C-alpha cells in the first residue's frame, strides 16, 4: 500500500468511525442531553456524580418542578411517593455543597423549577471544593463518546440483565433520582448507633467557612430566581444526638442564620419527633434512613409542601 493511500484510508475510516460513534451515542442519548425527554424515564446506572450532573442539563429541568439536594442522608428518599408534586432527588452520595451547586445552577438555569428542598446535615458543609473530577462541564461532550459512557452502557447491561444482582441490583435507582442504596448496605442500626454512643464518637459538626458561604450564596441565588426554599435538619439518631447536643445546637443555629423568614425550615430532630428519631428502626446504620425513616421524612416534607406550594398534579406546563 502506498503511504498516500494509507493516509487517505486512515482519515476516511477514523472520520467515519468517529461520526458513527457520535451519531449512535447522540441517538441513544442516555442522559437526555440532546433532545426532548418529556416521554423518557432516565435513571442513573453508575457514577452518580456524573450522571446526575448530566441529567441536570435537560432531563431534570424539563420534567420536574422541584428538587431535593443533599448528601447520602437524603439520597435514598424516594420522591415518587410525594404524588402531588414531581420532585427529583438530586442528592449525591458523599457530596458537599460545592458539588451540588453545579447541579442546582444547571437545573435552575435550564428550567423553571418552583422549589428546592435542602437536606441539612453537617456533612453538607464540612468541606468545600469538588471531591473528584466527575462533575465537569467537559462530560457534556463525553456523552458523545467517552470511557464514562462505555462504563455506563456496560453497567446498564449488567443491571438490566441481572448479571451480578448482589453488586449491581437493577432497581437501585429510579427515574426520580432515588438511590436505594439500602439494598447494598449493612442493616444493623442498633449495634452501630450504640457503638457510636459507647465510643462517644458522634459525627463532626464542623462547618467549613467556604462551604457555609457557598450555601449562603446558593440560597440567595434561589431567592433571587423566585424559587421557594425548603430545608430540613436530617434526623439524627436520638441517642447519638444526646451525646453531642451542644455542638449540634451550635451547628443548627449557624445554619438557621442562613435562612430568611420566607424560607421553610423543618427541624426533624425536634423533641416532638422523638418517637421516630429514638427508634432504631428509623435507620439502617448510625444515620442513613431505613424505609420507615424515609416515610417519616417524606411525610413531613409533603405536609410542608402542601402548605406552601399549590400542587399542579403533574402538569408542568404552567411553571
Amino acid at each position, binding site marked *: 500500500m502506498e503511504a498516500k493511500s*494509507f493516509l487517505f484510508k486512515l482519515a476516511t475510516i477514523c472520520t467515519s468511525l468517529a461520526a458513527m460513534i457520535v451519531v449512535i451515542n447522540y441517538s441513544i442519548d442516555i442522559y437526555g442531553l440532546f433532545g426532548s425527554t418529556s416521554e423518557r424515564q432516565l435513571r442513573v446506572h453508575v457514577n452518580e456524580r456524573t450522571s446526575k450532573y448530566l441529567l441536570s442539563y435537560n432531563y431534570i429541568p424539563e420534567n420536574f418542578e422541584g428538587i431535593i439536594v443533599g448528601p447520602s442522608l437524603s439520597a435514598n428518599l424516594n420522591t415518587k411517593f410525594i404524588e402531588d408534586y414531581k420532585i427529583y432527588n438530586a442528592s449525591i452520595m458523599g457530596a458537599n455543597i460545592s458539588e451540588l451547586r453545579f447541579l442546582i445552577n444547571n437545573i435552575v438555569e435550564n428550567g423553571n423549577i418552583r422549589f428546592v428542598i435542602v437536606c441539612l446535615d453537617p456533612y453538607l458543609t464540612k468541606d468545600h471544593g469538588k471531591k473528584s473530577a466527575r462533575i465537569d462541564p467537559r462530560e457534556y461532550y*463525553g456523552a458523545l463518546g467517552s*470511557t464514562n459512557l462505555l462504563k455506563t452502557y456496560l453497567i446498564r447491561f449488567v443491571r438490566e440483565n441481572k448479571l451480578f444482582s448482589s453488586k449491581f441490583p437493577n432497581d437501585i435507582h429510579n427515574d426520580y433520582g432515588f438511590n436505594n442504596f439500602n439494598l447494598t448496605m449493612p442493616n444493623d442500626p442498633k449495634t452501630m448507633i450504640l457503638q457510636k454512643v459507647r465510643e462517644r464518637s458522634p459525627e463532626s459538626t464542623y462547618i467549613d467557612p467556604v462551604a457555609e458561604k457557598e450555601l449562603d450564596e446558593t440560597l440567595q441565588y434561589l431567592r433571587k430566581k423566585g424559587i421557594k426554599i425548603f430545608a430540613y435538619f436530617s434526623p439524627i439518631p436520638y441517642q447519638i444526638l444526646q451525646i453531642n447536643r451542644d455542638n449540634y445546637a451550635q451547628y443548627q443555629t449557624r445554619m438557621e442564620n442562613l435562612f430568611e423568614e420566607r424560607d421553610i425550615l423543618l427541624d426533624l430532630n425536634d423533641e416532638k419527633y422523638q418517637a421516630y428519631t429514638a427508634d432504631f428502626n428509623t435507620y439502617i446504620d448510625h444515620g442513613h434512613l431505613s424505609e420507615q425513616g424515609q416515610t417519616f421524612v417524606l411525610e413531613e416534607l409533603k405536609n410542608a409542601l402542601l402548605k406552601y406550594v399549590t400542587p399542579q398534579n403533574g402538569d408542568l406546563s404552567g411553571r
Partner: protein
Amino acid sequence: MLFNSPVFLFCFLPVTLMGYFILNHRNHPDMAKGWLFIASLFFYSWWNPAYLPIILGSMTFNYFVGRQLNTTNKKTGKKTILTIGVMANLGLLIFFKYTDFLIENVNGLFASELSLLYITLPLAISFFTFQQIAYLVDSYKGLTGEYSFFNYGLFVSFFPQLIAGPIVHHSEMMPQFYSKENKLFSYENFIRGIFMFFMGLGKKVIIADTFAIFANYGYSDTAGLTLSDGWVTSLAYAGQLYFDFSGYTDMAIGAALMFNIKIPINFNSPYKAQSIQDFWRRWHITLSRFLRDYIYIPLGGNRNGEYKTLSNLMITFIIGGIWHGAGWTFVFWGFLHGAALIVHRVWQRANIRLPKIICIILTFNFVNIAWIFFRAEKWSDAINVLSAMFGFGTASNFTINVITDIYSLPIALFGIILLFHKNTNELLSEFKPSKKYLAQTVGLVMMGLLFLNSITANDFLYFDF
C-alpha cells in the same frame, strides 16, 4: 498547550503543518522556518505568555555568545566567553528553580527568617538551559557552524521537544533544518509520525493516567498504607512515570516526524535493564548523554584512577538528581543512583555473574524503590511508603485500598504486559503502510480520541522538571 488536548490535535498541529509545508512548497523556506519558530513560541506561551521574554532572552543571549565563541580565535578569550555564557545560563536556572530551596536551607541552617520569593518556575527552563549550555560548549570546541538566528531559535524552541525533551544536540537538528529534502511534505514520514504520536498518546491517556489514579491515591495518605498498598503505590508510580514520560517522548518524536524532523529516542524499554548502568542507557537517554558528555567527562570521567572515577559518577548523578527538582529528596534519589552505579562497577570488577532474570528483577526493584524518593513530596511520605512495603507500616496487612476503581485494573495489567513487549521505537521501525498497520493505527487513533474525550487527562509529569 498539551499534546493530549483537542486544541493541539485539531487546531495547532494541522495549522502549523499546513503553514510550514505551504510556505516551503511556494519556495519560501526561510518564511517556513520563521512560521515554525513563531508557532513554537506560541505553543510555549500558551501556558503563560509571561514566560516568553525569558526564553526569547535566553535564546538571543546564547545565540550571540555562540557566535562570539565561533569568531574568537584566542583560547583565553574563548574560555572567558564560555565561562560567562555557562554561568549566565546556570544563574538563570538557579534563580528560577533553586532560590526558594536555598532560602529554606539557609533558614534551616542559621535559624534565619528570610522570606521565600515563591518564584514560579518557567516551563521547560531546565530543558532549554541544558540544551543551550551544550551548544555553548560545542561552540567553544569549534563543533558548531554559522547558523542564522531563526535556525538557532528553531533548534531551541522546536515545539515537539521544547517542553520535556528529548534534549537535542545542535549537530542532530541543524542539518535537518537546512536539508532541502525535508522541506517537502512526505506521506511516508507523516503516517509514521501519526502512528508514533498516537502510540504515545495511548501510553499517556490510557495507561499512565490509569496508573496515576492508584499512585496519587497512595501518596495522598502514606501513613495509612498497608503492605500491599505500599507495593501497589510504588509500582503504580513506576508505571505512571514510564508511560507518561515515554508517551510524551513518543508524541514528540511523532509530531516532529510529521515535519520530516527526526529527533532522538529517549527510552528503550528501561525496565528490561539488567543493571543500573544498562538502565541509564535506556531511561531518559538524552539526559544521560548530556550528563556524560558535559559533566562526567569534563570532570575527568574514568581517566584518573578508580577512586576519581567513582567520585565523578557520584557527582554526576547528584547533579542529575537536583536537575530534576529543588529538594533534598531529589538529591537523595540522585545519590542512590550514583551509589548503585558505584556498586555495579565494583561488582563488575569482581566478575560475578547472575542469571539475566535475577539481574532484571534486582535492577527494577532498586529503580522502583528509588522512585519513591523521586515522587514523595516529603521525607516522611517516602519513609511511610517504604515502611509499608516492608511490613513496618502502621497497617501492615494485605488489604488493598488504593485500587479504588476496579474498572481501571485491566488497563493497568495491560500496561504491565506492555512493559515487556516490543517498545514503540521497535514498533515504529517495523511500521509499513499495510492493512495490518492501518488497522492498528485506526485502533490507536480511536482509542486515543475516546480517552481524550474522557475526564482522565492529567499534565505530563516531566513538565515539572
